[in-house]
C-alpha cells in the first residue's frame, strides 16, 4: 500500500524543501551553508552531541510514559504537569533526605511518586467518573504550572526571597556526572534502566499484554475480565510516574533547585518521540536522541542569528514532516496507532 504512496510522499518532500529554501533565500541567507551549520552542530561537534545526549535523558523517560499510555489508547497529554508534580514533591521532601546515595534514590522515588499522584488524579477522574483523560491531563498541566509559579514565590522560595526559585538541594542529592568534563549525569543510567524495564513489561509482561488488549479491543478485554477503566487508571499513574521521575532527574542532575520553565514543551516533544518510535520502548531512546539532535542543531542556527528566529520553528516543523513523508517514501509505515497496538 505504501508503495502506491511513494510518489505523493516524494512530492510532499519536494514541496517542503523548496518552500524552506525559498524562505531562507528570502532572509538573505545561504541554504547550503545554513544546512551545513545545523548538521555540523548536531553530528560533528562534541558539544552538540553532548547537548543532545543530555536532552535525551528526560525525553526518553517521558517518551516511555507516553508509549505505555498510548498503547492502551489512553491519551496522556499531561506529562508537563506530571513532571512538575514529581520535581515539586522531591524538592519539598529533599531537606528530610539522608545525604547519601540512598538520599538520591529516595529523591528520584519521590519524583516518581509525585508524577504518579498527578497522573493518578486524571486516572481517578477517568476510572471513577468516566471523565475524559485528554481534558483532565491538559487542565492539570495548567494547574501544575501555576502551582509551581506560586511555590517558587511562596513556601518554596529561596531564603533571600529575591528570585522566584527554591533553595538549592543538598549537593549530596545531586546526580553525579558520569563522564568527566561533561554535564552527562547518572540520569542517563536511570533512563537506560527505565527502557529495559518498560520494554520487558510492555513486550513480555502480562500487564503489558493486558494493556495492549485494552488498547486494541476494549470489548474483548472486558469479556476477558480486564477492566479498561482500571487499566486506564493504572496506566495514567505509571506514565505520570515516569514523567515525575524525569522531573526529579532534571532537578537532581542539572539545576539542583526548582525554577519555572525548566522543562519547556517536553510533554509535547515526548508524544512526538513516542509516536515516531511507534510506541516501541526500545526505539524510544533512539527517537528521543534524534529529536534532541534536531534540537541541538537548530540551536546553533538560533545562536548565529543569520536568519530570523521564526524560521527555526519553520525548519523544526518541516524536518518532522519531511521525516514522516520520507518514511512513507521508503515504504515503511509511520507508527500508526493501529499498527502500534497490534503485535504482529
Amino acid at each position, binding site marked *: 500500500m505504501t508503495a502506491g504512496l511513494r510518489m505523493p510522499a516524494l512530492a510532499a518532500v519536494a514541496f517542503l524543501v523548496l518552500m524552506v529554501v525559498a524562505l531562507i533565500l528570502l532572509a538573505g541567507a545561504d541554504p547550503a551553508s545554513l544546512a551545513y551549520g545545523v548538521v555540523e552542530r548536531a553530528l560533528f561537534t562534541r558539544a552538540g552531541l553532548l547537548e543532545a545526549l543530555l536532552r535525551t535523558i528526560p525525553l526518553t523517560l517521558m517518551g516511555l510514559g507516553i508509549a505505555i499510555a498510548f498503547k492502551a489508547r489512553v491519551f496522556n497529554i499531561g506529562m508537563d504537569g506530571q513532571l512538575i508534580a514529581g520535581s515539586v514533591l522531591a524538592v519539598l521532601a529533599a531537606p528530610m533526605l539522608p545525604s547519601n546515595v540512598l538520599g538520591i534514590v529516595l529523591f528520584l522515588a519521590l519524583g516518581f511518586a509525585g508524577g504518579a499522584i498527578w497522573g493518578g488524579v486524571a486516572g481517578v477522574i477517568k476510572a471513577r467518573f468516566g471523565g475524559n483523560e485528554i481534558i483532565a491531563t491538559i487542565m492539570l498541566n495548567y494547574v501544575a504550572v501555576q502551582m509551581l509559579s506560586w511555590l517558587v514565590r511562596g513556601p518554596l522560595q529561596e531564603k533571600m526571597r529575591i528570585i522566584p526559585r527554591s533553595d538549592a538541594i543538598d549537593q549530596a542529592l545531586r546526580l553525579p556526572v558520569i563522564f568527566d568534563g561533561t*554535564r552527562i549525569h547518572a540520569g542517563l543510567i536511570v533512563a537506560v534502566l527505565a527502557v529495559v524495564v518498560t520494554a520487558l513489561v510492555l513486550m513480555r509482561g502480562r500487564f503489558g499484554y493486558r494493556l495492549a488488549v485494552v488498547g486494541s479491543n476494549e470489548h474483548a478485554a472486558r469479556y476477558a475480565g480486564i477492566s479498561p477503566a482500571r487499566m486506564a487508571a493504572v496506566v495514567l499513574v505509571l506514565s505520570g510516574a515516569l514523567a515525575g521521575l524525569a522531573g526529579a532527574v532534571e532537578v537532581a542532575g542539572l539545576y539542583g533547585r526548582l525554577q519555572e*520553565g525548566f522543562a519547556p514543551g517536553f510533554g509535547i516533544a515526548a508524544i512526538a518521540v513516542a509516536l515516531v518510535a511507534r510506541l516501541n520502548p526500545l526505539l524510544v531512546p533512539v527517537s528521543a536522541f534524534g529529536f534532541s539532535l534536531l534540537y541541538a542543531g537548530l540551536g546553533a542556527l538560533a*545562536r548565529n*542569528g543569520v536568519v530570523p528566529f521564526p524560521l527555526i520553528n519553520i525548519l523544526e516543523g518541516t524536518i518532522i514532516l519531511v521525516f514522516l513523508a520520507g518514511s512513507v517514501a521508503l515504504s515503511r509505515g509511520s507508527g500508526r496507532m493501529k499498527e502500534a497496538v497490534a503485535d504482529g
Partner: protein
Amino acid sequence: ETKRVALVLPGPITDGTFNSAANKGIEAAKAKYDIEVAVRENTDFAQIQDVLRSYAEEGYDMVIGHGFQFAEPVMEIHSEYPDTWFVVNTAQVAAEPNVASFDNRWGDAGYMAGAVAALYSKSGKIGHIGAIPVPVIEDYNLGFERGAKRMRPDTEVLSAYVGSFSDIARGAEITTSQIEQGADVVTSTGNENVVGTIQAAQKAGVLAIGTAFDSHAMAPETIVTTALINMDVNIDLAVGKLMDGTLKPETYVLGLDEGGIGLAPLREFEGQISAEDKARIDALVEDIRAGKIDDLP
C-alpha cells in the same frame, strides 16, 4: 580589533518592550563600536547553559544574558571561560574575573510612573498589570504604588498579573477589567502583554504609561509618557567598557544619573495637568536623582 558580542534574550525581539529594547540597544552598539553581534531569541531556562557555553566556546568576548534567570547559569560556568565576559541584565551578580551585571532601577521607574499616573488620574484609581511577578516587575509594582501615594495619598492602586509574558489578549482583558473598576490611568510590565494593556486603554479611551523604551508612537493619544528602562544604556555601557577594557566584575546599578531609567517627555499631555502638578513631577525626578526619596523599593 573587532570584538564579538552575543546578546541572549528570553523572548522575541518583536515584543515591543523588554526584548525589543535590548535588541535596539545592541543595534545601536553595533553602529557605534567595532563589534560583531549575535542575538539569540526565545531562550527558555532549559537552554541557557548550552547557549552561554556555546558562545563562549565559539570565542565570543562578551555574552549578555538579558534577565535575572541568567544569573545562576552564568555563576555556574563563568570560571571555565576566563576569556569571555558574562554580563547579566536586571540582576545583581558579580564574580572574578569575568562576571558583571547591570541592574536598572525598575523600582524608581515605577515610582515615577506611579506619580505621573496619580496626577493624571481623575477617578483616583490607577492600575498596573504585570506579566509574571519576576523581581524587576515586583519592584516596578511596588514603586508604582508608592509613587502614586506620594503624589495623592488617597489614590487607589489596582494590581494584577497576567500569568504569561505573551498572552496579549488576557493582558488586554485584565486591563479592561481594571478600567471597568474605575482605573483611568494604567501601566504594564512584561513582554507582549504590555501591548495588550495599551490597546485596551486605547479602546477604552483612558490613559496609559508605557514601559521600557519610549512607546509614544504606539498610541500617541493614549500614552502619556513612558517609564523608560534604557536597556540600550546597559548594553552601551557594557560594550563600551569591554572595548576600552574598563569593565570590572561588579554590579552596575543604573538609575536616573546613569541614564539606566528615565521619564519620557509628556508631550501633548503636558497641558492636561496644572503647572504645579507638572512642577511636582519635575521635582520628584530631581529628588530621586538626589536620593532624597526614602521609600524607593
